[in-house]
């Protein structure tokens, strides 16, 4: 049968195109070239003025480096800062810098650049996460290899945010055209860009640290999940950075040519409830909905059973993680009783979701399970991001929604009453503030309190934690299993 298929295919090809059959379709140029497939393409290279995950995913730690970075366990570790000390009042940070670091345009990296980069966030950045830097009071250049940052109040969140794009180090001589010409201190430089197709990174010959194993990395952008899988199967790429079609995973697991690496992310798939509006301003109604949904069954349907049930806004890689998945176990009988008690019978709720596959399939499960306890829901898929952002996120025009919250430590959003959750708890706000200013031990204790309080209040229903599933050729090793930073870290990848 296979032979006949070959003959038929060859005949078709020869007739239709005159192309010589039998050659290999591989595009990998050599052993030191790696080709990685992504679904979301960076709009440009300027993450100081354009939001979204795709730009830091490609550039952070690879082209741009910060003083510190996150390791795969979620710990803050040194990068451009060799070490640092924190004053007893937790407001002054002294960073000792790596010697001999150069930007890719040749300029040396010094404490002046630290000052320039950190203060520039306040003045030139236009994306909203920049507000984490508001706490910086001033930056002193103590010596070329010693920068001192003084905060206006203690903030644990600030040091953590330095591991994100907010901490990226720029040179004053390298910010003229950030959208097209990034200049960083990282192991790679952007060598070429084909819009709608790929970005090519080449090894930075003047890199200060250990040179990466692959001297050329092609970042291929393939939006369609099937096309992405096909590209790997047909040797077009070597790695799928994150699988977006979970049903295809067994096919790769069954094939010796490939390996599947699974870890966790920071991305909580959340059933958001509009806490500010009736009937969901009643904690009993929110708890009832939480009891009514079988999250295990939902995970099986929406993401082929991969992913983690966590029951809170905290992924396992955060230091204050606790398993809260079973605080509100699946109990439709109890859900019905609570709804009756709250006088919330005959509910009809608008479930307004982004038109993304995971949200659509999760919404159908939510709808049918809520129907079992007598709650009717109308699913309204909204064009993402444009319409969802405007109507649900900004205008708060929804009862329920389902969306991935991808940012690290975004549990702090429950401290903002104006956020689209509509959740307003003085206790949680106080605990979050205390956690940010306290010692690391206090931070852990307070954050646990926050997570438990949110769970008790059923401020949302955390359906599951999105898994990080990388599929790669068997010969590639060194992947960061858990996706905890904003970066797709290429620096540790190596043939094995």
């Amino acid at each position: 049968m296979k032979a006949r298929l070959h003959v038929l295919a060859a005949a078709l090809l020869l007739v239709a195109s005159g192309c010589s059959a039998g050659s290999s379709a591989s595009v990998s140029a050599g052993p030191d070239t790696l080709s990685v497939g992504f679904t979301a393409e960076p709009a440009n290279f300027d993450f100081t003025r354009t939001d979204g995950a795709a730009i830091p995913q490609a550039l952070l730690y690879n082209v741009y480096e910060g003083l510190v970075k996150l390791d795969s366990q979620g710990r803050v570790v040194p990068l451009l800062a060799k070490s640092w000390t924190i004053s007893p009042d937790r407001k002054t940070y002294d960073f000792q810098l790596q010697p001999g670091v150069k930007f890719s345009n040749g300029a040396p990296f010094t404490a002046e650049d630290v000052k320039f980069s950190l203060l520039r966030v306040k003045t030139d950045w236009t994306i909203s996460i920049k507000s984490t830097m508001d706490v910086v009071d001033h930056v002193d250049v103590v010596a070329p290899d010693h920068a001192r940052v003084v905060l206006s109040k203690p903030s644990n969140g600030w040091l953590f945010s330095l591991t994100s794009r907010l901490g990226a180090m720029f040179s004053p001589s390298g910010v003229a055209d950030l959208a097209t010409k990034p200049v960083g201190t990282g192991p790679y430089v952007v060598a070429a860009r084909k819009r709608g197709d790929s970005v090519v990174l080449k090894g930075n010959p003047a890199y200060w640290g250990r040179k990466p194993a692959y001297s050329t990395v092609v970042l291929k952008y393939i939006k369609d999940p099937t096309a992405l899988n096909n590209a790997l199967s047909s040797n077009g790429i070597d790695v799928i950075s994150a699988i977006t079609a979970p049903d295809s995973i067994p096919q790769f697991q069954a094939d010796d040519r490939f390996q599947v690496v699974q870890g966790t992310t920071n991305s909580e798939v959340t059933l958001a409830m509009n806490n500010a509006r009736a009937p969901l301003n009643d904690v009993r109604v929110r708890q009832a909905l939480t009891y009514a949904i079988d999250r295990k069954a939902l995970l099986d349907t929406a993401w082929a059973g991969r992913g983690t049930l966590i029951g809170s806004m905290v992924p396992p890689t955060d230091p204050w993680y606790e398993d809260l998945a079973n605080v509100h176990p699946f109990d439709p009988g109890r859900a019905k009783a609570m709804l009756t008690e709250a006088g919330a019978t005959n509910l009809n709720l608008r479930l307004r979701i982004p038109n993304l596959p995971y949200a659509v399939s999760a919404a159908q499960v939510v709808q049918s399970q809520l129907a079992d306890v007598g709650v009717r829901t109308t699913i309204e898929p909204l064009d993402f991001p444009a319409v969802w952002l405007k109507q649900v996120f900004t205008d708060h025009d929804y009862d329920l929604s389902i969306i991935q919250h991808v940012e690290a430590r975004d549990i702090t959003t429950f401290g903002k009453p104006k956020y689209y959750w509509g959740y307003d708890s003085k206790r949680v706000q106080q605990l979050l503030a205390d956690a940010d200013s306290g010692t690391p031990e206090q931070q852990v204790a307070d954050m646990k309190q926050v997570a438990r309080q949110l769970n008790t209040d059923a401020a949302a229903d955390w359906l599951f934690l999105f898994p990080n599933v990388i599929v790669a050729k068997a010969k590639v090793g060194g992947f960061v299993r858990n996706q905890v930073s904003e970066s797709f870290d290429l620096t540790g990848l190596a043939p094995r």
Partner: protein
Amino acid sequence: MTAKVLRRVAIFVVSVLVASIVVFLFMAVLPGDPAQVALGVNATPELLAKTRAEFGIDRPLVTQYFDWIGGVLHGDFGRSYVTRDSIGPQLLDRLGVTLWLVGAGMLVALVIAVPAGTFAAVKHRKASGAGVSGLSQIGVAIPAFLAGIILVQIFAVQLRWLPSGGWTPPDQNAGEFVRGLVLPALSLGLVQGAVLTRYVRSAVLDTLGQDYLRTARSKGLRPGQALVRHGLRNASVPVVTVLGLQLATLLIGAVVVERVFVLPGLGSMLLDAVAARDLLTVQGIVLVLVAGVLLVNFVVDVLYTVLDPRLRGS
């Protein structure tokens, strides 16, 4: 003849202008705020206002329109909200990819349709002719993306002869360029070829029944010779019309095929730009596509008069 062409040119220009207004208004009423999409979650009202001003979308619609169309008339399509690049050069680049795809698809279609359609017409009383007609019926029913998926499964995933997608510019590596274009062109062309086969068949059948062909045969030409010398040119008039109409379908098919095969053409650029509410880019692409379709109609009209001298008089 000159007056006729001039009139067609005037109609062409007015149509493009009307289209530009329609496109612009469509974009203006599309829900979603480009500034919000660019800024993402947690965007503050101040940042939103600042970004709207930077994009120029806080000005009256009429001002925005005249600014835009004024620029386009000078060849300046503006700068994208999202990529911060000039749209014009990017458009040209992407148009190049789409034109290669549509051109190659059209070639595949013609290579299939002209012989198959002629064969089906000449043998229309025989089983073989009916067989070709039947095959074309099946081909018409298969959408281009499905053809693409099947071709990728066979030639890229199973046999690994050809890439499953991606684009290599012809000046960079001609061999890779051709290899990358084969499957997309086939998926676009097979379906179009099936559609076209039916038109060729009926056009040739029609021609076969004409008096002048009988005359030619009575002078001793065999049926095939008579058809080639006297019939095909006449049969080509309706076929050219259909080709012109089909080109619009091909462009739409190209949008889908570009997504399946990850080709950086106008179609994938359009889908991305719509999702990001990159209004200026969407306007630019749609205007170019509309102008392209109108241009094809214009060329078809002119071609008529070349192919059929009888139409030159009026």
